[in-house]
């Protein structure tokens, strides 16, 4: 298989297989979660908690606690910067929008490529800083498992290979573009079976958190 064959395979059947695994995997995952159910709360409730649930989805992106804010500033800011950089790159780069258009049928305006380039660099630098933080901070060192480093790598590779492709670094463009798409395939394949699922489940988790507090009349 030469570079062209590789690129053709990975952007055709490769990506299709990865997408199918992603969709099926997430379906199974959500089924596993919601099949468990939750017992009805029989206490005399102060409210349904529905409103508080939705509110917590929004408010939990910020901090309410002065002490934690001071002591987790790095995690907090790095979390924001990395996610914004990554989502900007994924959703606002013109060639990416073309891919989405071919799947869902419509497009949206792209950002100029130099801005995307900057966002990618910021996201990668932030990720490297977060990795350093993970291996040096005592709490993170204690909590971290192999999977934390696997998902870090799975997230970092598409950013790195995308950057390499755009700047024509190290290898031929065809090969690097193939590797870029392959890294996205890997991300999709592993997504439903690792903590990458937080990207989806966190909204439900926040909702339950706010809802259960709201039932008791606790406003977050």
């Amino acid at each position: 298989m030469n570079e062209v064959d590789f690129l053709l395979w990975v952007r055709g059947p490769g990506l299709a297989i990865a997408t199918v695994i992603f969709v099926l995997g997430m379906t199974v995952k959500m089924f596993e979660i919601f099949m468990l159910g939750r017992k009805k709360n029989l206490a005399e409730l102060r409210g349904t908690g529905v409103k508080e649930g939705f509110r917590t989805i929004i408010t939990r992106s910020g901090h309410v606690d002065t002490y934690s804010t001071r002591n987790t500033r790095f995690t907090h800011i790095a979390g924001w910067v990395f996610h914004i950089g990554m989502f900007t790159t994924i959703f606002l780069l013109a060639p990416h929008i073309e891919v989405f258009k071919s799947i869902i049928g419509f497009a949206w305006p792209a950002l100029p490529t130099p801005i995307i380039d900057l966002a990618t660099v910021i996201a990668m630098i932030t990720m490297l800083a977060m990795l350093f933080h993970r291996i040096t901070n005592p709490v993170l060192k204690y909590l971290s498992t192999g999977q934390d480093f696997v998902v870090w790598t799975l997230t970092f590779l598409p950013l790195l290979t995308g950057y390499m492709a755009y700047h024509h670094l190290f290898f031929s463009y065809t090969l690097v573009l193939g590797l870029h798409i392959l890294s996205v395939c890997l991300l999709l394949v592993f997504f439903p079976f690792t903590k990458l699922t937080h990207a989806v489940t966190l909204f439900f988790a926040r909702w339950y958190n706010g809802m259960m507090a709201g039932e008791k009349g606790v406003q977050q």
Partner: protein
Amino acid sequence: MSEATLERGLNALKEVIDTPMALFFSSCTHCGMCATACLFYTETENPAYTPINKVEPLRRLWEQEYTLVGRIKKALGMSKPITDEELEEWKEYAYNACSLCGRCTMVCPVGNDITYMIRKMREGMAASGHTPEGLVGASTRAVEIGSPMGVKLPALQAQARHVEKDTGIDIPFDVEGAEYLMLMSSMEIMNYPEYLEAVSRIFHAAGKSWTISSEAFEATNSGIQIGSSDIARQLVSRVVNAAEKLKVKTVISPECGHAYTAIRWEGPNLIGRPFPFHVKHILEVLDEFRAEGLLKTEGFEDARMTFHDPCQLVRRGGVVQQPRNLLNMVATDFVEMKDHGIMNWCCGAGGGVSANEDAEELKMKAFNRKKHQLEELDGVETLVTACANCRIQIEEGLEENEIDMPVVGLTELLAEHLVEENKTEG
């Protein structure tokens, strides 16, 4: 309790795993933010005390039993089973180093209710027999004697007679059809007799009928602290039976945090049906009296005062504004701690920590958080709270740190300023 085994423990854990919990475990990215929200971590810097770590065996069980990858790994013999040794190690994390205060639940960026999970984790710890001696003792006394501290009815009756002699007001026992059933905590009966006197005078002045049940006067519930729903159910049922027998409209939880959670929020779920009566914390009732003009006070405290929010009342209970309304009736110089209300810091002794001798040293370390908070305030002279357990921990902590600051219960503070018009019961 029936014989505790690992198998029973694992079954108990499987039973508590539900949709919210699966979402929480699926969402955790090991960011470590919950550590800085936990006073057991901030005051010791022991990474093992990071809240999410306290449920690690439960997470593994969820993964092995309820996820596709986990089941495949288990079938291939690639997963680490949960053992007695591991649960024994986790006893320190799940009991000694957790007061179920709920602060981690408020800061988790993905929204995990970690406290909810630790409370459920204790069900498996209790069923597998990995529980601290002190809590086993308290639970046994609660079941056999009727109180975790071994307080019996005659002790309460003697206290009631003293109060009657001092105030000339009857303390009603077993009065059918009374509006309110008053519960007490053992700590109040043993250490803070002021509470009973205060409520009897306030209710007398308000002209409200109330009673104590000689069959169920204890409000605390060791069952929810140790994590045994069976014991918790048995203790809640006593109160429910008494309330139904006396046909009261409302059961009043005393100045005790976890007692409120036990009867107000867990109670109906433990017995499997809604209560035919309301459950209110004493501060909720007093605030209603205030709003109806039934609680009148005179004079003000000159001292600069602050209020320590009991975790189970605010974050886990939704009683936030009432103590402030009440305190403002009698305090002219009331200042809030930096993190207060739903973001207050725990006293360090809730959730069974105070009954657990293994945690004695740790709970005093944890108290340093409250000490720092008090030091941040300028010249506070009196600390007011509404939980006898918080109160005794704070008193002990202040004494250990040689800080001279009186700690008072809000109900008794209000009673000191009560306008008594000798209203008779209507």
